[in-house]
């Protein structure tokens, strides 16, 4: 991956840009890197005869695989409902219904008994028989339902294998997935942070995958000859979902043109417009500050359209993912940060220090040593400490840019007090250095600590003495508290930000932060989900940082709820023993408001 990303610099300079025309299946513009999921080696299905005394074991395996598939889908449904995507929820409901199909169960279990073959071969034959009935129908619309049946089939077969692994979970940040075909569960389970667009050889407007892509705002183009892309792994690619166009290794000018177009295409749904001028205030008069999570300059420009009160999290490393600006240059950083701060016109902006490492690498950097567990490895502030020169350049650029507005810094992956102290010391040194050189800059910037490693949350009181504010990064926190890699293929089953274990730890940190007079906001994905907003509010959070597109929905949810009720709900949630109970509690209290907000 690294060698190919090195070549991007050269390819944007020299090689011709290639334009492909396909069918638009979901609008919008995305600029990213080509990601080719491993051709899912047409899941190999072993076939062997079994003896009569193995029948029960095989049937048991089948039931377990179905139960695991159901659990996957239920969690997926939960997170989609959290995002307020009712239509996607109903598609997943249809998938759940298919898994419960009595004819399917009778067929599979009956055949195992009668024909004495292993579960996966019997299941596959049964599904193929269903598919044959579909496929001689000419209607393109119903052909699409075939994809749903295959989707289910793959899911169950996946659980019958020893090592189930789903291809898209390995996609790095800013990936454009180029693949033969995608299905509904693929589109529904992607993290929008990692996957920015889809390009497929097949695909149809009526497909459930397209529908979910549209409701999640992920550009998607079908009917593209993907053959040439197989040699383009890691190259820059533009997806113009509106025009149905794909541009491979675009020229600089093309990238700039599309960045502008991308910004223009981010329109808000009309029915949210009346909300714009209104505060995020609960029905009992409690105000919540709604800020935005952003990663590009263009996103910042649209903030006034969604009514954000500032930026709660600027993922600084993403500003450089377009491969045009060099993240190692002080001037490039200074210019980009200044541009960002200027656009805020005095509103607060929190820039998170470069969060490289883990699943994000510096473009063009060859890895020195592959880590076995990159998400538990040298990332965030640890990564910066290992590159003192880069850290100093970074802080210089930030201090210089700080004169343009209300800038605050956020330190990622803090696990211990010493790290915060060290950052402060280096910042003082850098500031003196700049003074000596006579370069204008802010002497001091407020520094916040990202709470995402459990040890940091448990030390909130101590950290309060060395930082000015806190920001809860619930995505990483969830994976560390539950001990599950968030890229893991079983993520849907175990990765739950509303797990009572996570909630109790969050609650602890919020109380400690407040006790020491430090503000605390939430910037993880949980804050962008309307269903979870009242819960966070009830836990004592007054500030949420949200994906811009979700901001109006969250605001609507807040305006429709009361903090007094939210506090009771949060108390009940903290007493829950399982994530599913928390989910049911929220659904029973707030699903009504959710329907109105989607």
């Amino acid at each position, binding site marked *: 991956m690294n060698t190919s990303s090195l070549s991007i610099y050269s390819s944007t300079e020299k090689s011709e840009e290639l334009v492909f025309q396909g069918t638009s299946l979901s609008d919008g513009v995305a600029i990213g890197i080509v990601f080719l999921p491993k051709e899912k080696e047409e899941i190999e299905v072993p076939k062997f005869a079994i003896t009569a005394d193995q029948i029960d074991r095989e049937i048991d395996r089948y039931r377990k695989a179905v139960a695991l598939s159901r659990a996957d889908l239920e969690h997926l449904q939960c997170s989609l409902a959290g995002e307020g995507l009712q239509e996607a929820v109903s598609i997943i409901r*249809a998938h759940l*219904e298919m898994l419960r199909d*009595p004819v*399917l169960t009778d067929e599979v279990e009956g055949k195992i008994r009668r024909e004495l073959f292993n579960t996966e071969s019997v299941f596959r034959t049964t599904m193929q028989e269903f598919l044959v009935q579909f496929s001689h129908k000419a209607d393109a*619309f*119903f052909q699409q*339902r075939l994809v749903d049946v295959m989707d289910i089939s793959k899911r169950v077969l996946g659980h019958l294998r020893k090592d189930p692994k789903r291809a898209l979970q390995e996609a790095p940040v800013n990936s454009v997935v180029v693949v033969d075909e995608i299905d509904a569960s693929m589109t529904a389970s992607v993290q929008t942070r990692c996957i920015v667009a889809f390009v497929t050889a097949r695909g149809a407007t009526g497909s459930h995958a397209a529908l979910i892509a549209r409701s999640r705002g992920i550009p998607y183009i079908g009917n593209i000859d993907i053959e040439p892309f197989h040699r383009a792994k890691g190259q820059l690619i533009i997806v113009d979902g509106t025009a149905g166009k794909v541009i491979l290794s675009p020229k600089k000018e093309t990238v700039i043109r599309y960045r502008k177009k991308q910004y223009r295409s981010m329109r808000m749904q009309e029915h949210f417009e009346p909300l714009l001028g209104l505060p995020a205030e609960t029905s009992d008069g409690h105000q919540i500050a709604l800020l935005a999570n952003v990663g590009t300059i263009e996103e910042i420009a649209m903030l006034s359209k969604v009514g954000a009160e500032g930026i709660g999290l600027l993922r600084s490393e993403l500003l450089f993912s377009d491969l045009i600006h060099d993240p190692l240059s002080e001037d490039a950083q200074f210019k980009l940060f200044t541009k960002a701060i200027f656009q805020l016109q005095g509103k607060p902006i929190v820039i998170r220090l470069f969060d490289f490492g883990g699943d994000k690498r510096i473009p063009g950097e060859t890895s020195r040593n592959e880590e076995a567990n990159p998400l538990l490895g040298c990332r965030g502030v640890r990564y910066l400490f290992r590159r003192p020169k880069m850290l100093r350049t970074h802080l210089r650029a930030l201090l210089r840019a700080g004169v343009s507005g209300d800038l605050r810094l956020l330190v990622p992956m803090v696990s211990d007090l010493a790290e915060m102290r060290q950052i402060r010391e280096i910042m003082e040194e850098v500031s003196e250095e700049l003074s000596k050189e006579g370069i204008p800059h802010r002497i001091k910037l407020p520094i916040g600590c990202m709470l995402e490693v459990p040890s940091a949350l448990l030390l909130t009181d101590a950290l309060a003495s060395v930082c000015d504010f806190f920001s809860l990064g619930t995505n990483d926190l969830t994976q560390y508290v539950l001990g599950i890699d968030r890229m893991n293929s079983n993520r849907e089953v175990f990765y739950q930000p509303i797990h009572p274990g996570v909630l109790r730890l969050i609650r602890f940190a919020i109380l400690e932060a407040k006790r020491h007079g430090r503000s605390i906001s939430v910037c993880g994905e949980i804050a962008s989900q309307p269903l979870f907003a009242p819960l966070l509010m009830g836990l004592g959070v007054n500030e949420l940082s949200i994906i811009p597109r979700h901001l109006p929905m969250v605001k609507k949810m807040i305006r429709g709820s009361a903090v007094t009720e939210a506090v009771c709900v949060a108390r009940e949630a903290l007493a829950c023993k399982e994530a599913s109970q928390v989910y049911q509690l929220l659904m029973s209290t707030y699903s009504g408001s959710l329907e109105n907000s989607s």
Partner: protein
Amino acid sequence: MKYTQEIIVKTSLGLHARPAMEVVQILQRSQSKARITYDQRTIDAQSIISLLSLAAPCGAVLTLAIEGKDAKATLLKIVMALSKPSE
């Protein structure tokens, strides 16, 4: 009680996932069993995959055979589910 009746699919996209799901759920809550014949194929209406495999478009005429204690009421509910044009 046992009934056989012809039903016209009026949902604009035909018998697709959502109406099929509704039919299945109606039958799950009832005490009747139903079979549907369309285009010379007869399938078990309790099975969503079988229902979808009929690929019945809007305007298709299905023959529904239903049997059970609450056959008549269930039949009515199924007709209603397949008559919502907006679905």
